[in-house]
């Protein structure tokens, strides 16, 4: 029995469970368990003046725990590290963030991660951590500590790892290897090694950084240098004017660079570098990784999305850090190195349909030195460098990055990143197969200066689509400075193009561009021209072999699914085989159309619709199942048709136990509780399809006989949904008679029929029974049963009241005299002195019925 109430309740329960579960998960995730403690800690004194550092300690739920020292980026403060620190603390680390000297509320001046100042401060903080009872220690004064940071903080992490052996793990993000190289880069090392030829000044980035730090304390120390240390400030200002770093500046920058001290790092190091980064390029991480790994220290390199030009996802940074720190700091293990590359535009976001990045795990670890040789072609071209260095191409702008060039390339040309007459282009043929560019590709060029003795060039590799769309990956160009040229004499140089990660689809071309200007760099002011040609016409494209990394084992999922489906199919097959074996035929009952024995049907709510009913229907009988509404007639017939399962007792049809799908049901034609027709088909099609559904030979259907019985005339070809209730009723009874079944079961067949049709129906049933077939009719109309049936089963409130032939039942009642000619009889009686009056015959069965059930009728 369907219980709509139940269904609704379960739906509600399911919904509440989903909502509650979601809320619980979110609540657990966001519950604050972290305690913070702000404190000023003494750092290294600056020329005799004490310096205090502004720190915040984040304590996890359980202590003592390993510590993580977090350092912020240039121009920032400890406040920037809040979300990161909180995540790490929730993960189980004691986290110490602090504002570096020269910034925020901390004292002192900026020395650019100088070992004597900033690094010494960090050492003091490690010592401070060792004194805290919440921090796990390896030895007295030696805390279990990892140090991490991005950019300025990343370099500090590397330098602290080099200068302080107590550091157990390092995470350095988007930072430098050699600050002098980063700010005064030079793609080709000049043979003379002279400081004057040290490189091409990255003026926009340098000035941006200087301004951001000197402007960070309004009012306090007004002046051009802000809180920069005076020696650093003076050296910078001199370089900014000339574009050439003085020896003092180079020495200062070298001291602040990990490059010289990488060999001293023994703590496992995570190096992540941004792919959108024109300040500290992937090549800088390359140098760091090579320097650290050279001494056997495990290094993991991650080329991540974003960078100084593209932003940073704190969540990704933290999870990457946790994956690296956990084995070392929590379990004391020593990890092995690995190399992950984020490849932009290799996946499509399911949510938005936009291209997104995917992470590739390099198959051969780090460094991957695989290259693919791609032929490029183009005649030697003469390019002009304008006087004053203007107009200049725009490839990327500090902090804004490649947005400009992306906008330009969307227009279908290389736009502002290349100015006509300033650029030589060498293009490959359309690539026959997709190619992953990952790293700095190289190419050999013949450069001839027409007048000058030196050259400043900017080399880049573009991806040009079949439609002509031009893109410069990450907006990166590689500055090249050549010195000692002889005018008119070509010099062959091998140029390392910017390290980029780009998935180039088949059919696109790679184009090497060599230009004379770039807005971000200091340019020669004198006008000059160069001729640029290919040496051997081969572009060595750096690439990486690897597997797109999504974690886990997808096969397990697929296997689970296949196992589940297989189990389902096997279960269904086994169940149906089991059911087929359960057929039982009772001996001696095979000629009895219906044998109901002690039938009980109790519904879920405790209501007993049928309560211990026993009767038989013999062959050839027309049996009326009689009783008021709610007597249990229909329930009995439903059990008889295998539609519902009895609570106890049995129904046998021709000796075979009736249950759902029992084959013996095919010998019954039924009409139960109203018609069940397909409204979108005609009457004829309904009967035809119904017979087709039985799967029995169509010659056995006796369709015409049935249609004749239905008496629908021409309406039989109209759609059933246009039928009246009576027409549907007759069609459904005709459906029950299809194939002239041995047993016909009709539940209230005369509902909705007019008196004439009822009379016809009666005749049909009588004729039907005359062929030796058996008919069971349920009805609450006594007249009908009395006139149609040979036998009666009377039910009331689920119980059997009487069983027998109509004659027997009637005989059991009061005596009644039936005369052939009432008028004559009245006359005869009157003559005999008996006053008599003719009244219409009482429905005798009705009398009996009322007598039987009347006393408790309510």
């Amino acid at each position, binding site marked *: 029995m369907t219980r709509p109430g139940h*269904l609704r309740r379960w739906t509600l329960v399911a919904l509440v469970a989903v909502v509650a579960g979601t809320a619980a998960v979110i609540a657990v995730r966001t519950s604050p368990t972290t305690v913070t403690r702000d404190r000023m800690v003494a750092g290294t004194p600056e020329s005799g003046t004490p310096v205090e550092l502004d720190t915040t300690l984040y304590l996890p739920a359980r202590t003592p725990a390993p510590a993580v020292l977090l350092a912020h980026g240039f121009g920032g403060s400890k406040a920037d590290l809040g979300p990161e620190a909180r995540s790490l603390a929730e993960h189980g680390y004691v986290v110490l963030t602090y504002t570096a000297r020269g910034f925020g509320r901390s004292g002192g001046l900026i020395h650019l991660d100088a070992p004597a100042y900033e690094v010494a401060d960090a050492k003091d903080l490690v010592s401070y951590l060792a004194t805290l009872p919440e921090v796990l220690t390896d030895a007295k004064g030696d805390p279990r500590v990892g140090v991490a940071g991005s950019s300025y903080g990343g370099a500090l992490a590397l330098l602290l790892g080099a200068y302080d052996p107590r550091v157990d793990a390092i995470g350095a993000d988007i930072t430098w290897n050699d600050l002098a190289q980063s700010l005064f880069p030079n793609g080709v090392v000049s043979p003379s090694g002279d400081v004057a030829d040290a490189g091409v000044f990255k003026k926009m980035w340098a000035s941006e950084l200087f301004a951001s730090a000197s402007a960070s304390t309004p009012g306090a120390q007004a002046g051009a240098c802000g809180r920069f240390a005076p020696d650093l400030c003076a050296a910078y200002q001199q370089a900014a004017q000339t574009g050439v770093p003085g020896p003092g500046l180079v020495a200062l920058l070298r001291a602040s660079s990990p490059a010289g001290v990488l060999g001293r790092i023994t703590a496992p190091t995570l190096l992540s570098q941004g792919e959108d980064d024109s300040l500290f390029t992937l090549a800088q991480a390359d140098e760091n990784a090579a320097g650290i790994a050279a001494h056997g220290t495990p290094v993991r390199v991650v080329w991540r999305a974003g960078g100084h030009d593209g932003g940073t996802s704190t969540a990704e940074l933290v999870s990457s850090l946790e994956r690296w720190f956990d084995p070392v700091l929590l379990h004391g293990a020593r990890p092995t190195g690995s190399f992950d590359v984020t490849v932009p535009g290799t996946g499509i976001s399911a949510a938005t349909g936009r291209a997104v990045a995917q992470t590739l795990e390099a198959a051969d670890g780090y460094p991957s030195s695989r290259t693919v040789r791609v032929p490029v072609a183009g005649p030697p071209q003469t390019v002009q460098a304008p006087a004053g260095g203007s107009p200049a191409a725009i490839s990327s702008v500090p902090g804004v990055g490649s947005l400009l060039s992306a906008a330009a390339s969307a227009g279908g040309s290389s736009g502002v990143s290349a100015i006509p007459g300033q650029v030589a282009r060498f293009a490959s043929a359309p690539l026959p197969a997709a190619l992953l560019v990952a790293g700095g590709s190289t190419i050999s060029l013949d450069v001839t200066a027409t007048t000058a003795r030196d050259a400043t060039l900017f080399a880049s590799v573009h991806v040009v689509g079949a439609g002509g769309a031009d893109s410069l990956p990450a907006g990166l160009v590689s500055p090249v400075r050549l010195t000692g040229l002889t005018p008119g004499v070509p010099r062959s140089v091998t140029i390392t193009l910017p390290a980029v990660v780009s998935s180039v689809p088949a059919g696109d071309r790679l184009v090497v561009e060599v230009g004379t200007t770039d807005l971000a760099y200091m340019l020669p002011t004198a006008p000059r021209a160069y001729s640029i040609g290919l040496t051997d016409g081969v572009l060595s494209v750096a690439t990486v072999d690897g597997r797109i990394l999504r974690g886990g084992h997808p096969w397990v999922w697929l296997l689970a699914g296949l196992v589940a489906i297989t189990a389902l199919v096997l279960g269904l097959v086994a169940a149906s085989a089991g059911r087929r074996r359960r057929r039982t035929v009772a001996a001696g009952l095979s000629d009895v159309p219906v044998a109901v024995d002690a039938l009980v049907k109790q519904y879920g709510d405790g209501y007993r619709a049928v309560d211990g009913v026993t009767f038989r229907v013999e062959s050839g009988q027309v049996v009326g199942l009689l009783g008021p509404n709610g007597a249990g007639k229909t329930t009995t017939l439903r059990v008889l048709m295998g539609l519902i399962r009895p609570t106890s007792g049995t129904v046998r049809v021709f000796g075979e136990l009736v249950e759902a799908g029992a084959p013996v*049901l095919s010998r019954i034609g039924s009409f139960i509780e109203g018609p069940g027709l397909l409204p979108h088909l005609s009457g004829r099609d309904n009967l035809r399809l119904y017979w087709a559904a039985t799967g029995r030979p169509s010659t056995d259907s006796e369709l015409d006989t049935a249609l004749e019985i239905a008496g629908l005339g021409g309406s039989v070809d109209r759609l059933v949904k246009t039928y009246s209730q009576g027409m549907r009723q007759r069609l459904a009874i005709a459906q029950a008679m299809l194939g002239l079944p041995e047993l016909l079961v009709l539940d209230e067949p005369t509902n909705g029929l007019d008196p004439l049709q009822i009379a016809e129906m009666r005749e049909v049933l009588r004729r039907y029974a005359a062929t030796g077939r058996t008919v069971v009719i349920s009805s609450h109309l006594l007249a009908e049963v009395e006139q149609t049936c040979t036998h009666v089963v009377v039910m009331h409130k689920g119980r059997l009241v009487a069983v027998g032939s109509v004659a027997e039942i009637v005989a059991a009642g009061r005596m009644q005299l039936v005369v052939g000619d009432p008028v004559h009889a009245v006359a005869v009686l009157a003559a005999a002195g008996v006053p008599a009056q003719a009244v219409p015959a009482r429905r005798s069965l009705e009398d009996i019925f009322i007598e039987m059930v009347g006393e408790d009728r309510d």
Partner: protein
Amino acid sequence: MADVHDNGFRPGRTLRLRVEFTRQLRRRRTQLAAVVLLVLPVVIALAFRVSSQPGASGGGARPGGGSGSALVTLATTGATNFALFTEFASAGFLLVVIVALFCGDTVASEASWSSLRYLLAIPVPRSRLLRQKLTVGLTLSVGANVLLPAWSFLVGGAFFGWAPGRSPLGGTFTSGVALQRLMVVVAYASLQSLVVAALAFLLSVVTDAPLGAVGGATMLVVVSNILDSITALDPYRQYLPTHFQYSWLDALGPTIVWDDMMRGTGVALVYAAVFFAVAWWRFQRKDIVS
């Protein structure tokens, strides 16, 4: 054979597929669904034709930057891309509703017409009834899943030409490869709709209201999509039935990445198996009173 009876009745021949197909195909809702699927691509194509009239770029822009879906920008490239776009646009809801309709309405509508009890009185064995109904429902669902992209391919070809397919990640496919990718997409999308089909079928067995079954299954997809957008649920989100719904996008890159499609298939099969098992279990024991 024991299952042949003297009146020619054989349980294994009841409600044959041809009969059930006739019963379903002649229904107005089946025909309506087909009409919607046939008209939709034409409407989309006309919309693109009208909106791209001034300065039709022909899909020259590169994806990644800018706004909107990469598939939209490429939709007018040619037949393949148009088919991919209509698939992307319809997979989220239209195909879900249609699959829910075919599989959710099938048993419940018989119950609502009261014809279910006459089928069972034939008697069509209950397990067989479900099997035949499900076979037809799933066939119609797959039909819808195939018809839409196939018809879109033809409509796209007629409107925008037969240019080779372009990947949203850049690059072009040859016709053979494009067709292969399209087939992977259709196969995976069809497999994903198995979850909806299974739940709709289960509800169809449990309730007598066809609308309840169709609506209930559609609701599952909506709720699952909402939960899927809550990133705080993260390790558990991937077990949501619709989490990998669009993983067929991985078949559009330079190489097909199967990882998520394998996961999505596994999730879909597990859900489907559970729903089907409950449907069968319930129907075997159900008292048919409608």
